[in-house]
């Protein structure tokens, strides 16, 4: 196995750093996207025409903004947001520089998934909470979100996997990570082994994310 040893000594450090960068981008931006996305998703649900506090005009405007953002391809958003990104994190490259566009891109996606998960909560359980005299923030915090949690966790795997795709695209503009390596070595230098290994790492990552979320979702779900 001299080839393997050689490969590891030459590219091992690079691939390890790439994996760490990818994971950092992935988890930091997804976490921030959830902070924003949960807030927007809850507001979309609560203000919908059949929601707890219907505000049709506001809901329509917010929904339209969410759809707008979702319809911009990530690579274009990345470039368009550069002035904004520079203003808030003082760089547009590396893991830090790519986090703002990743968050802006993922948050509306998360918002729609949260809205969807909340809509799946049976209506009469929420009405029962309302009939107990619970305020809307209380219903959201103590009834809606806990009831929707297994579905939200299943959504997390979908979000993580699409953000993982975005991080690879971000690699093309110098964000670092596995996507960056695949493009630099595989595309520009024709070092196929490196590209194959990055792809394998990405595949493994997707599998691990999916299985972990499934296991957690099933464990916390009490509707058997």
């Amino acid at each position, binding site marked *: 196995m001299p080839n393997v040893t050689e490969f590891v000594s030459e590219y091992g450090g690079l691939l390890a750093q790439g994996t760490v960068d990818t994971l950092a981008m992935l988890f930091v931006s997804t976490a921030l996207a959830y902070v924003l996305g949960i807030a927007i998703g809850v507001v979309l649900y609560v203000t919908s025409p059949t929601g707890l506090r219907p505000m049709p005009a506001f809901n329509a405007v917010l929904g339209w903004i969410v759809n707008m953002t979702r319809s911009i391809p990530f690579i274009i958003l990345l470039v368009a947001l550069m002035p904004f990104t520079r203003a808030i994190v003082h760089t547009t490259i590396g893991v830090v520089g790519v986090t703002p566009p990743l968050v802006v891109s993922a948050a509306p996606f998360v918002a729609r998934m949260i809205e969807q998960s909340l809509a799946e909560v*049976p209506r*009469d*359980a929420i*009405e*029962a*909470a*309302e*009939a*107990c*005299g*619970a*305020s809307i923030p*209380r219903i959201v915090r*103590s*009834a809606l979100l*806990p*009831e929707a*949690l*297994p579905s939200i966790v299943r959504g997390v795997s979908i979000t993580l996997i699409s953000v993982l795709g975005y991080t690879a695209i971000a690699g093309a503009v110098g964000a670092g990570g596995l996507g960056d390596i695949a493009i630099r070595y595989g595309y520009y230098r024709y070092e196929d082994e490196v590209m194959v290994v990055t792809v394998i790492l990405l595949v493994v990552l997707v599998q691990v994310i999916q299985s972990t979320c499934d296991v957690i979702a099933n464990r*916390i*779900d*009490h*509707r*058997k």
Partner: protein
Amino acid sequence: MISLQNITKVYDGSDVPALDGVSIDIPDGDIFGIIGISGAGKSTLVRCINLLERPTSGHVIVDGTDVTDLTGAELRAYRRRVAMIFQGFGLLAQKTALDNVCFPFLASNGRVTADDRAKASELLARVGLADKADSYPAQLSGGQQQRVAIARALACDPEYILCDEATSALDPASTQQILDLLRQINEETGTTILVITHSMDVVERICKNVTVLVHGKVVEQGPVEQVFADPQDETTKALLGRVSWNA
């Protein structure tokens, strides 16, 4: 006393009223039945009482106070006086029986104290489910879930309990258990109970007074024995099985 005065409800996008000038006085301490076929407006009526639905016109007067336009904290305080039990139980699937019963405490005080939990345990024992405190709704039968819902309804010491088809999803044995439980609660605490149903059998078994609702209108009202002995309206007769529906 709950007094409904000329309640009309027209849902958005509908031209037939779901309720059409309904006036009912529900005496304190009563077990009061509202019966009608599917679509008669029964659910709409109870939902107007606890203001899950706002009447299009008319007034809901409780102990002399008009509650129809209450909002915010006043509305929530009013809702705590009026508990509700649903056909589909309305339990939170991700909470244990005990936590479901504790929910009203959370709703009113923002937290659940040790005393609250002790009271919730007592209520579960009261409905015969002391050993199910840590079970989740999915692990309970329909009748047991409805008893958890009754324990939850009792948590705030309500003055009124509204039951919307509380036994419609249950088998005869569970139905009997739930009806017995409601009657005991009424006798022991004097809580006024409003029973919405499409079953004359349920009315006969626990109600003192009954109102018959047809197409959103009250067509007959009175003590159960009187209505049963001498029904005036065709729908009442049909519900009683005295005439066939096609008659």
